[in-house]
């Protein structure tokens, strides 16, 4: 197992998804009428509101559940969620900011070497699965971290997990496995 102390892998977080509840019923039509950057989808029953400052998109349901996506860090997600709640407050709803939780974090990372996917899949059955007919990446699920890693042959990987800490741990866990199956050095 090669230690990765010499090489610093930068993990770039590209998406953070968070949910929270407002504990009050929201009238979607009012929001749709009076918000300036909203998309109303009556068939599904939700309103999409996009904020500019932390660039996030929020799906708002009439039950008061709100899902925020598009933030690039956990703090940003919280800030965006609070902004959104404030906006709804101004529209006249008795909004409370409860049950805030980060649900999913998506990060990308590039390895400095290419990876032989077939060998990787062979070594790590059945946790890893690779179906070239369906998707060009091999997917590896880490059960205890509840994280999924998608590995491409170019060496870039995408990791999704419940929070940033787990994502980082997942990258650390998978690095030695990938290093074993790296392609012959050019």
């Amino acid at each position, binding site marked *: 197992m090669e230690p990765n102390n010499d090489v610093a892998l930068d993990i770039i977080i590209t998406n953070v998804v968070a949910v929270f509840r407002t504990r009050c019923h929201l009238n979607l039509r009012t929001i749709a009428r009076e918000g300036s950057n909203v998309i109303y989808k*009556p068939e599904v029953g939700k309103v999409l509101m996009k904020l500019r400052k932390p660039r996030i998109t929020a799906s708002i349901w009439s039950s008061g559940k709100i899902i925020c996506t598009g933030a690039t860090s956990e703090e940003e997600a919280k800030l965006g969620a609070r902004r959104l709640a*404030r906006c709804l407050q101004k529209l006249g709803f008795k909004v409370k900011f409860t049950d805030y939780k980060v649900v999913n974090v998506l990060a990308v990372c590039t390895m400095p070497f290419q990876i032989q996917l077939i060998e990787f899949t062979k070594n790590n059955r*059945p946790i890893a699965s690779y179906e070239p007919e369906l998707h060009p990446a091999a997917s590896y699920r880490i059960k205890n971290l509840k994280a999924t890693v998608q590995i491409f042959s170019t060496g870039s990987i995408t990791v999704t997990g419940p929070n940033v800490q787990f994502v980082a741990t997942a990258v650390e866990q998978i690095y030695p496995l990938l290093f074993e199956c790296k392609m012959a050095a050019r």
Partner: protein
Amino acid sequence: MSSRVCKTCGCADIDIDQARGNAVCMGCGSVLEDNIIVSEVTFVENSGGGSSAVGQFVSSDGTGKTPVLGSGFHTSIGKESRTQTLQNGKRHINNLGHQLQLNQHCLDTAFNFFKMAVSKHLTRGRKMAHVIAACLYLVCRTEGTPHMLLDLSDLLQVNVYVLGRTFLLLARELCINAPAIDPCLYIPRFAHMLEFGDKNHEVSMTALRLLQRMKRDWMHTGRRPSGLCGAALLVAARMHEFRRTVKEVIGVVKVCEATLRKRLTEFEDTPTSQLTIDEFMKVDLEQECDPPSFTAGQRKLRLQQLEQELAKKIDEVQGEICSYQDEIEMELENSRPKLKGIYASYTKEDTQDDTLSVASGFPGNEDGEDEELVAAAKHLNKDFCRELLSEQDEADSGAESGAESEQPTTSRQPPLASLLGPLPTAASLGLSDSIRQCIAEKEDEENSEHGELDLNGIDDEEIERYILNEKEVKIKTDLWMKQNADYLKEQKEKEERIAKEKELGIYKEQKPKRPPKKREPIRASTAGEAIEKMLEQKKISSKINYDVLRDLNKKGCSPSHQSEEAVTSPTSKRLASRRKRNIAALGLGNQVSNMGKRLKPLISGPTIKKPAGDQGVTSTVPTPTPEVSQPVVVESGPVVYEDVPDEEDDEDEEPCVSAMQLMGGNGL
């Protein structure tokens, strides 16, 4: 059987004869047992002369439910759901398998997979077709047959990815590791489809070599194997002087033209492409290549780096140019006469205004930081300040220089403003935000308990911008109404419909689907009754000519027919009410529909209750009918029984025979 001791003589030697069913003591000859119950397989003679074993097969893993004797003909007698599922599955597997030309061994293996899947309850919530396709594909993979998932999806007209999902799940649950696909497997199949005639084998071999070369050059990781095969075959065909167009190859291989072209260009980039045909056949280059996506990524990276370097260089150059500019300006001004008096003060004011306007641009702009711009801005800023200072020093400058000094400032102002514009002070704002958040974390926790909104770092003014004023609201509402007029109309109609139905009292609440209720086996004294009850359970088929059936039964026995009418009219009422739509669709004519309409108000009460079981229905229904009918039914039993089975045998698949005649009979 335990051998006992003979009572009379005490002898333990007892002879048991299975054929006679006797147990006789060998000592004294007394018969100890008679008519012993034997548990052996016995045979019974059929009507055709053959003999069949007596008894039924009961599965060991099934429920203890005893099969219905006699009148359970709509389900195969004695079979439980599990065996039915397996039989069904086997049939489908064989169907599909034959279409794919799989041999029997593969089909058996697939059936085994299916059995495993059923026992693990993987068929629940999934279409049977998907599960079967997944089993078959699993077999294909383990055996290494050249079948693609695409073929299966073609046959079933299902999305490939849906099938893929089911297949992956199946492989994971059954802990079967399907070996990775080798594109070399597909070559013989595609080559055969492309019809190379005598040279088929040679072309295949060439294509194989090409593929192996591609593998060494890392073109095949993460790609669909069929695309690679297509490219290899195309090149191989051309090498052996066969004219195969891209279109033909695409039709066989099932990738799109762009993919094929891309593979070909990638192969072109490898050094192998430079070899001639003969060389290729003989020599194998040692060097391996990087995968094409990797090289593309590297190229992008390199381009980006180049751009950055260039940008930096441009900045430097710009900086240099600016400094030269400044020096030149300085020199020019030094050599010019200076303004004195009022004009000097004017120039000073102007420059101050400029600085103010530029400075106000700072906090207003909040986009991302850009190091280059910051560096450039700082540099220019320095010059600007220097300019200011130099002008202030020369407060006594003359009008000309004042005018000219204005010009350079104005000429520099737009670029400055544009350059300095996107300078972020939001950076500082953002930092203070996060700092405040860190400090105020404890507060946050308390707030989250109460559900109050923590207003730290939230700019109210900005949020006000998100909310439209009244006029805008009105315009938006109008626009939206116009756009979504159709949807709104639909909603209104739906509500009206529901309101109407509520009035009539027939409003059917759309409850979530309940699991299908288990049906009890029908117990009836006559065949006719049985048919009625069965028809209630099952929906009426639209493929039966009910008029003919009606006549058939009528011909047999008219008195019993009339009695049946009386008995079955209540049941038919129920049928009519529940299936008024079906009846209309069947187009049985006025009689039935009239009857339905006539009887509907009569039975509107009981139908709303929605009886739990069909038996309940039939048991409650006969009570309102006059008791006269019941004994009549019993009498006519044997008469009816003769007629009906004959018809039933004919239409076993659609056994809803006599209900319609019963219903129609009422009208007649």
